[in-house]
C-alpha cells in the first residue's frame, strides 16, 4: 500500500473518462506521472512499472473545484478561536491575504476530499473589501504545499452586509469603493510624495491601496459578492468605470439581467440551492445557474457551507434538475472555476500536462447512489479516511473499543 501511494506512475484504466475539455471516452486510460497527467485516451501505453487502478465500469473526472467557503480557515463554526477568515478593524482589507491563516491539519480537509472535492477557493469574509481569496489543493502538510494560486482575487462585499461598513447605504458603499480605487491609483502615481507624507490622507492604508493595484490594472479579478439585481448592476458599472476584470459571486438575482452579464463577459459563482428570499435578493431562485448558462454566462458552482463542501455535487445535480445540462454542470465544478480563477492551464480538465487531480466514481458523480472509489491529488492517491470514517469504525459495534 505504501509503495502504491508513493508510486510515481499511476495508470487508471478501463473507466469512462470525462475529460471535460472534450467528449467522454469509454474504456480509456488516464496515465499519471510525477504528479501530472501524462496521457488520456484509449491507445495509451501503460509502462510496466506503473501502479494500476482498475476503473472498469467507473466514471473518471477531474477533481471537483468548490469556488467558495473557508476551508482551513474555520474548524468549528461557533468557536471564534478557530476562525481566521475575518479581519477585524479594517473595512478595506484588500491586503488581507488569508493564506497564512489556513490550517493544513484541519479535519474538514479530509472529510471533504474523500468525497471528490480536491480544490477549493478559501475566501475572506465580512468588511467592505474582505481581502484576498486563495486557491488550495486539499492535500499537503504545509500551506506552501497546498497553495495553487495566491491571490486569486480581491473580494468586495457588494451587498446588504457590506453597506454596514460604508455608513449604512448602498449609495455610500459604491462611492466609498470608488474613492478607494481612485486613491489607490493616485497612490501609485505619487508613491514618493506619500512616502514623504506630502500627500493628503488617503482613504485606506498604503498596504491596502497597494493590494488593489493588480485589480485596477486588470491583472487580478475583483470578486464581487452581490445578490440584488441593483447590486450586480453596481458591480458591472464599477467594472466598466475602472476597466476591472470582474467575477460575480452569489449573484442570486443575476438571472434577471443574464444577457447584460453575458455581454460584459463577466463570469458568475452561484450556489444552485439558494432560493430563500431575503431583502438582499427577493428574486432568488433555483433556476439561476441554468438561466445564466443559457444566456452564455460562464458559471461556476459553489457550496458555501465549508463543512459540507462535499455537497458541491448535490448542488450540481440540482442545477441539472433545474435546467442546466449535465455537461454544463460538470464543467461548472471543474474547468469553468479553473478558468475563472486563472488556473485553467494547470487545473480543471483531464489533459496531458495538467495537475493530476483525478476522481474515480462508482457512477454519475452527481447521484446519491454514487460513491468515491479513488481520489488522486497532484498524482498521489489519497487514503479514503477521515475523522468521520474513524468515528464510524469505532462505533460500528457497541460498546465501542476505546
Amino acid at each position, binding site marked *: 500500500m505504501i509503495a502504491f501511494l508513493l508510486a510515481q506512475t499511476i495508470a487508471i484504466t478501463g473507466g469512462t473518462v470525462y475529460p471535460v475539455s472534450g467528449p467522454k471516452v469509454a474504456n480509456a486510460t488516464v496515465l499519471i506521472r510525477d504528479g501530472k497527467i501524462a496521457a488520456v485516451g484509449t491507445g495509451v501505453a501503460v509502462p510496466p512499472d506503473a501502479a494500476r487502478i482498475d476503473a472498469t465500469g467507473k466514471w473518471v473526472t477531474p477533481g471537483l473545484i468548490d469556488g467558495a467557503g473557508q476551508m482551513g480557515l474555520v474548524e468549528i463554526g461557533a*468557536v471564534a478561536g478557530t476562525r481566521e477568515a475575518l479581519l477585524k478593524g479594517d473595512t478595506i482589507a484588500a491586503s488581507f491575504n488569508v493564506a497564512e491563516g489556513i490550517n493544513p491539519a484541519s479535519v474538514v480537509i479530509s472529510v471533504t476530499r474523500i468525497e471528490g472535492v480536491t480544490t477549493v477557493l478559501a475566501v475572506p469574509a465580512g468588511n467592505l473589501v474582505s481581502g484576498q481569496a486563495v486557491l488550495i489543493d486539499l492535500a499537503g502538510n504545509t500551506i506552501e504545499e497546498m497553495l495553487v494560486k495566491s491571490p486569486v482575487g480581491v473580494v468586495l462585499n457588494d451587498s446588504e452586509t457590506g453597506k454596514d461598513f460604508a455608513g449604512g447605504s448602498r449609495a455610500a458603499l459604491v462611492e466609498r469603493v470608488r474613492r478607494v480605487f481612485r486613491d489607490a491609483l493616485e497612490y501609485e502615481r505619487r508613491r514618493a510624495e506619500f512616502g514623504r507624507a506630502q500627500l493628503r490622507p488617503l482613504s485606506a492604508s498604503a498596504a491596502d491601496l497597494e493590494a488593489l493595484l493588480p485589480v485596477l490594472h486588470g491583472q487580478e479579478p475583483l470578486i464581487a459578492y452581490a445578490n440584488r439585481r441593483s447590486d450586480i448592476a453596481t458591480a458591472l458599472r464599477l467594472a466598466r468605470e475602472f476597466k476591472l476584470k470582474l467575477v460575480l459571486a452569489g449573484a442570486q438575482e443575476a438571472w434577471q439581467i443574464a444577457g447584460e452579464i453575458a455581454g460584459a463577459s463577466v463570469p458568475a459563482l452561484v450556489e444552485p440551492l439558494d432560493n430563500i428570499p431575503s431583502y438582499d435578493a427577493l428574486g432568488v431562485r433555483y*433556476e439561476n445557474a441554468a438561466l445564466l448558462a443559457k444566456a452564455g454566462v460562464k458559471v461556476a458552482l459553489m457550496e458555501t457551507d465549508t463543512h459540507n463542501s462535499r455537497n458541491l455535487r448535490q448542488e450540481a445535480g440540482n442545477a441539472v434538475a433545474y435546467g442546466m445540462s449535465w455537461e454544463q454542470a460538470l464543467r461548472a465544478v471543474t474547468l469553468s472555476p479553473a478558468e475563472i480563477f486563472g488556473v485553467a492551464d494547470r487545473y480543471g480538465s483531464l489533459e496531458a500536462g495538467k495537475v493530476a487531480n483525478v476522481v474515480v466514481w462508482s457512477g454519475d458523480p452527481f447521484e*446519491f447512489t454514487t460513491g468515491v472509489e479513488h481520489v488522486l491529488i497532484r498524482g498521489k492517491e489519497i487514503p479514503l479516511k477521515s475523522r468521520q470514517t474513524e468515528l*464510524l469504525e469505532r462505533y460500528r459495534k457497541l460498546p465501542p473499543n476505546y
Partner: protein
Amino acid sequence: MRHMWLLLLAVIMTSGCATGAARPAREGGPAPTPAQAPAPTKPAAGESSSVDRPQYGSTYQRHPNPPVLIRNATIMTATGQEIASGSILLKDGRIVAVGAKVDAPADAVVVDGTGKFVTPGLIDEHSHLGVYAAPGTDAESDGNEATNPVTAEVWAEHSFWPQDPQIPLAIAGGITTIQALPGSANLIGGRSAILKLIPARTVQEMKFPGARYGLKMACGENPKRVYGQKGGPSTRMGNMAGYRGAYIQAEAYRRKWDKWNKDHQGDAPDRNLRLESLAEVLRGDIYVQNHCYRADEMANMLDLGREFGFRIRSFHHAVEAYKIRDLLAAAGTGAAVWADWWGFKEEAMDGIKENAALLQQAGVRVNIHSDDPSGIQRLNQEAAKAMYAGVRAGIPVTRDQAIRWVTANPAWALGLDSLIGTLEPGKIADVVVWSGDPFSVYSRAIQVYNDGWLVYDRNDPAHQPRTDFQLGQTPAAGGRNDR
C-alpha cells in the same frame, strides 16, 4: 447560505433546533380526530374553568377536490412495498385503494404516472417555518422567547406567520405536514404547532385537527450560551438542574389540579400557563421533542424522563445518537437527524453520515428532519444521502426504510401515524407524485396532494400557491414557468 442561516440562528441565539415533547405511556396516543372534524385540543368537559373549554382549536377545512386516480406509477407505500406499475385512488381526502389494479369512479381525474413515483406526503418533524419567516428580519424573528430559560407557556402557533414565503417552497418539495417549533435558546422553549402545510390566512386553518402538542426542550450549548451571562444556566449541569426544577414545580401543580378536577372542592387552583404545559407532559398528553446533540447528554435526558415518569418522544439533531443507539432503542425514544450536518459548533463535531443507518439497524425510529427552510425542500434527497452512506458502509438500509424516514417515522414522532405517513386505504390522502425516483438528485415533486387537494402542480401555475408577501415583485421569482 444554508450554513450561514444556521450559524446566525445558533450564534445569535435566535437558534432553531429541536423541540422536545414528552412521551406519554400510551403508544401512538389517542387517534386524532378525522380531518373534517376540527377538534379542540381537549374535549370540553362542561366545566366552568377555562382550562376545559374548547380553546385555540383548529379551523382546518378540507379543500374540495374531485377523486384522483394516479395510475401506472411506481408506488412507494412506506409499508414495506414498492409497487411497480401501480395505481392509487384518492377520494374525499382519503386514500381509497392502492395496488396493481384499482377501479376508479367515472368522475375521477386520471393522472398518468408512467415513469413517475408516488410517495406519502413528506413530514418534517423539525421546522421553523413561520416562526423564523423569510425574509429573515428581526421583525419576523419569532422563534425564541429568550427572556427566561423556561418558557413552557409560549406556543409556536402564536408566532406562526402563514404568509411566510418559505411555505410554498416547502410545499413544492413535497412536504404536507410540519412540526413548527420554538427555537433552542431555552431549556424549555414552548409548545410546538403541528400544521398541515397549505396556503392559509390563519394558523388555525393549518392546525392538524386533533394533533397533540409537542414541547420543545433543548440541551447543551445554546441555553447555557444564551443565559450564561443572564443569570444562568451557564453549564450543562445547570441545564439539568433547570429542567428538574421546572418539572418538580409541575408535579405539584399537576397534583393540585388533578385533585380539584376529581373532587371540585373549593376554588379551582390558580392557573399557570408554564406549569400547565409541563403538567400535560407529565400526564402524557404532550410529547417532549428534545433538541440534543451529544450522546452523554441524551443519556442524561433519558434519566430525566425516568425521574418524572415521561418518555422523551424524539431527540432532534441527535448527531451523536449512533453512539447510544442501544439506549435509544431500549427507551423507545426516536431520533430525528440530518443526513450530514456537522462542525458548525462543538457539540456537532462528531456527526457522521451513517448516523441514520446505524440507528435504523439498531431498531430506533429514525427520521430525517430539516431545521432549515432550504433543507425542508429536499428531505427526499437528504434521506437518499443518509441511506446510500449507510449502504456504502455495509449497513443495510432498504428503500422502504429510507422513505419511512421522511414519512411514517416522523408521523409516529408526532403521534399521527394512524392517520398519515403511509399509502394505505383509509389514511389521509397526503400524496406526492415525483418526476422520477425520489432518491435521485434529478427528481422533483410534480404534484402534491394534501388531504386529497391538489395543492401544488409543477406544470400548472394555477396550482402554485404564492403568499401575499410574494405579490407585486417583478419579475416574479419562485420557479415560475418563465424559463
